[in-house]
């Protein structure tokens, strides 16, 4: 393999610096060229692809939002036909929820979590690659179908009986349901990867009580994904089989029940909101600490709030169904549960405010996004408490008030922190800082445009305008408010354009960033920007929650991992005591080929159930090739004296 000294098979005081780098590059690198590019298992490469893909879907869904706002800018507009409008709002919601919001949070985590916990790659790195390809194929299938006028049109939650075989003939809903299968497989795979990495691959000394708050958030979120996503996957599989092979799960004429759909959907759908929101709170905690130059106030309270939110999230789903008619006890219980979730969220917000209060804040762009988040999210949280009340909910159900509420929670609560996080970790991933002044411009445009767009919707909703209508008559008192919302959406879009142009320009010619441009405390800043393919030359070890602030003279490191083959360290779950050295998988094309085989099977099963039987063979063959050991060429373990 190399002409290196075979006696030096491990890093250590004798093997460090440039020579170590050269060897690790050989062990952790991948082949050049297209096949190598498609075979990568490096979390940084996959994380970046995930992120770029998610933002591409956000742009597409954003354009659809602009189309809707153009249509609604004035009453009785004929810009978009009713049928096209149905497809557009369904595609907007579906893309934003399934192809942007959840994947983009996973994308950031895939990139930064291994760096934050101080390991060389994610656990099950081939599964991580597979996750990306499944996600990409699911998104492509949905958008290609939309381009062919087979875009789903029954809303992003596809309620039966509207989405059933009787009221939605054709293949539009099937495309929606199968897109769910793709993205849920991808999401579950990424969640397994994340849980295993966080629990087993933390740097020596990084006990659970020293884990960065974003890592905590992703641990909770990944567990939530494991418990929540099966519900929607099962639900959409039942819908497909109702439509394709004549089962009757949701058919009331054959003793099925349309509301079963809603129960299973929202058992997933409500936790989904926190699956999107909790990573954002993790971003906020990281950025607040760095830019206030002190650890987040009340670390145990924040962690317990994350856990409490994660648990409560599974006890709220019925509040989406108040209008379906429920037993009185059901109303009371789910109202109380929905209001309770405000408590842990409120605790976190007070902790961040206290951190800013007690710290020495630097008002750089990421902290501006944090402040924008606190302001906007509190508004969305308050309307959430309002909607938890049954009489108000019955009044406001399916109106623009609800649209305003969830855009405040999702954009204010998740996208603002995300844009802050991209600005914050951009120098780590690219080696260059994003422009501060253009960052401020984009923040001002997005923040202002957002409130101008969505605040009036509270009022349009209270004036009775229902959501998902392609137009409205003049003289209802909705005209001016809608026009303001549409103007606001243009400013909001301009803000995003400035943000993306800033990112693009800074990527090419931004100010070079060192390893730690923000003087931040986490391990991800202990390696170069961008990090080398192996992340850390020697594995860092930590003794506090803020290692880089507490070890100014240099981080202690552990040595002894092999340098001639990919090897990573597993540590114990709670105390992070070094436990074993395991091989880490090499790059291979098989996750991609498996995803192609399974993808063709999924797409085929939209048309015939036999696709599942036929697809079993190529999918099984590809998976077998994936799992078959390829490490025959790894030299055996060198003897230790």
């Amino acid at each position, binding site marked *: 393999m190399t002409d290196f000294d075979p006696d030096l098979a491990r890093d250590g005081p004798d093997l460090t610096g440039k020579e170590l780098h050269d060897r690790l590059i050989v062990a952790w690198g991948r082949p050049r060229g297209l096949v190598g590019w498609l075979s990568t298992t490096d979390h940084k490469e996959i994380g970046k692809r995930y992120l770029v893909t998610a933002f591409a879907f956000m742009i597409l869904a954003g354009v659809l939002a602009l189309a809707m706002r153009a249509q609604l800018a004035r009453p009785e507009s004929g810009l978009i036909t009713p049928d096209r409008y149905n497809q557009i709002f369904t595609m907007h919601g579906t893309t934003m929820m399934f192809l942007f919001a959840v994947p983009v949070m996973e994308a950031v985590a895939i990139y930064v979590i291994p760096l934050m916990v101080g390991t060389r790659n994610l656990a099950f790195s081939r599964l991580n690659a597979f996750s990306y390809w499944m996600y990409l194929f699911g998104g492509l299938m949905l958008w290609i179908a939309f381009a062919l006028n087979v875009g789903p049109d029954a809303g992003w939650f596809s309620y039966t009986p509207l989405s059933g075989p009787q009221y939605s003939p054709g293949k539009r809903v099937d495309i929606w349901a199968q897109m769910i299968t793709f993205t849920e497989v991808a999401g579950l795979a990424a969640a397994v990867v994340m849980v295993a990495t966080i629990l087993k691959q933390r740097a020596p000394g990084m006990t659970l009580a020293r884990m960065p708050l974003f890592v905590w958030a992703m641990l909770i979120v990944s567990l939530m994904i494991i418990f929540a996503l099966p519900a929607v996957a099962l639900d959409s599989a039942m819908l497909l089989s109702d439509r394709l092979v004549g089962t009757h*799960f949701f058919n009331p004429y054959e*003793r099925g029940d349309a509301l079963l759909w809603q129960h299973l959907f929202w058992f997933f759908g409500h936790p989904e909101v926190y699956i999107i929101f909790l990573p954002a709170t993790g971003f906020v905690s990281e950025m607040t600490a760095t830019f206030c130059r002190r650890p987040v106030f009340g670390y145990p309270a924040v962690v317990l709030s994350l856990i409490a939110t994660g648990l409560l999230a599974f006890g709220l789903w019925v509040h989406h169904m108040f209008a379906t008619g429920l037993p009185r006890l059901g109303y009371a219980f789910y109202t109380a549960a929905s209001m309770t979730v405000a408590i842990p969220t409120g605790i976190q917000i007070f902790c961040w405010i206290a951190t800013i209060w007690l710290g020495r804040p630097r008002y750089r762009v990421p902290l501006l996004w944090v402040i924008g988040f606190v302001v906007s999210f509190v508004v969305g949280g308050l309307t959430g408490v309002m909607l938890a009340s049954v009489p108000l909910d019955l009044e406001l159900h399916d109106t623009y008030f609800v649209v305003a509420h969830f855009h405040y929670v999702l954009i204010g609560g998740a996208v603002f922190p995300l844009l802050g996080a991209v600005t914050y970790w951009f120098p780590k991933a690219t080696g260059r800082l994003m422009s501060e002044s253009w960052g401020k411009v984009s923040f001002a445009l997005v923040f202002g445009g957002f409130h101008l767009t969505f605040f009036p919707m509270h009022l349009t909703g209270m004036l009775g305008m229902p959501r998902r209508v392609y137009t409205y008559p003049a003289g209802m008192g909705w005209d001016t408010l809608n026009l303001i919302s549409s103007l606001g959406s243009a400013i909001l879009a301009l803000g995003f354009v400035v943000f993306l142009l800033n990112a693009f320009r800074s990527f090419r010619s931004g100010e070079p960033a060192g390893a730690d441009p923000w003087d931040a405390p986490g391990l991800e800043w202990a390696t170069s920007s961008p990090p080398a393919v192996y992340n850390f030359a020697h594995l860092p070890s930590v003794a506090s929650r803020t290692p880089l602030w507490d070890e100014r003279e240099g981080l202690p490191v552990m*040595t002894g991992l092999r340098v001639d083959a990919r090897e990573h360290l597993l540590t114990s779950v709670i105390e992070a005591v070094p436990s074993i050295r395991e091989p880490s998988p090499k790059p291979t094309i098989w996750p991609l080929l498996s995803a192609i085989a399974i993808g063709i099977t999924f797409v085929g099963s939209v048309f015939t159930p036999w696709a599942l039987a036929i697809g079993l063979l190529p999918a099984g063959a590809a998976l077998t090739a994936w799992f078959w050991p390829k490490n025959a060429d790894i030299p055996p373990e060198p003897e230790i004296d």
Partner: protein
Amino acid sequence: MMPAPRFSGDLAHLPTHAFGHRSLTWWGVIAFMMIEGCFFALTVAAYFYLMGQEQSWPPPPFRAPDLLAGSLFTLVMLLSEIPNTLVKRAAEAGRLREVRKLLVLTVAIGLVLLVIRGFEFNSLNVFWYDNAYGSIVWALLLLHTTHILTDWGDTIILAVLMHTKHGIVDRRFVDVSENSLYWRFVWIAWLPIYFLIYWLPRLA
């Protein structure tokens, strides 16, 4: 510029594989059990939800499924734990020849189970397209069959693998051990489903 590293410990003496929760494989298997357990739990919830709509279960004119095939399946399933435990122990003790033999036996048992499963579908006395009761019963049985089928395929691959030169590597014994752990989940998950499909319609 990075400060010079401060060497604080060496990991070279750590082992390169371990059984149980020290290995990543175990965590992967547990995570997939959690995911599949959720699928089963939610399907069971849907079963009770649909049952709640009915006056009698199964709804007339359908008869409860015949007991023979399902009960035979359950019996073989329970007995399969004997070779399953043996192969797990042999793997953890590193006894390659025993592992090879027992894996072939478990593959054979899987085949027997799949054949009996075919008869089970034939003894449900209802089709998936008859009504919602039929749909959910078929869903439960199909879900579990997918389970058996994937684990069977997995075990075949593993059995072949252990007969090649790759079987000599210590880490492969971890795979065998975790495969046995997964099989336990497969049969434990079956017991409540067996009750729901075959006995609840007789008791309700």
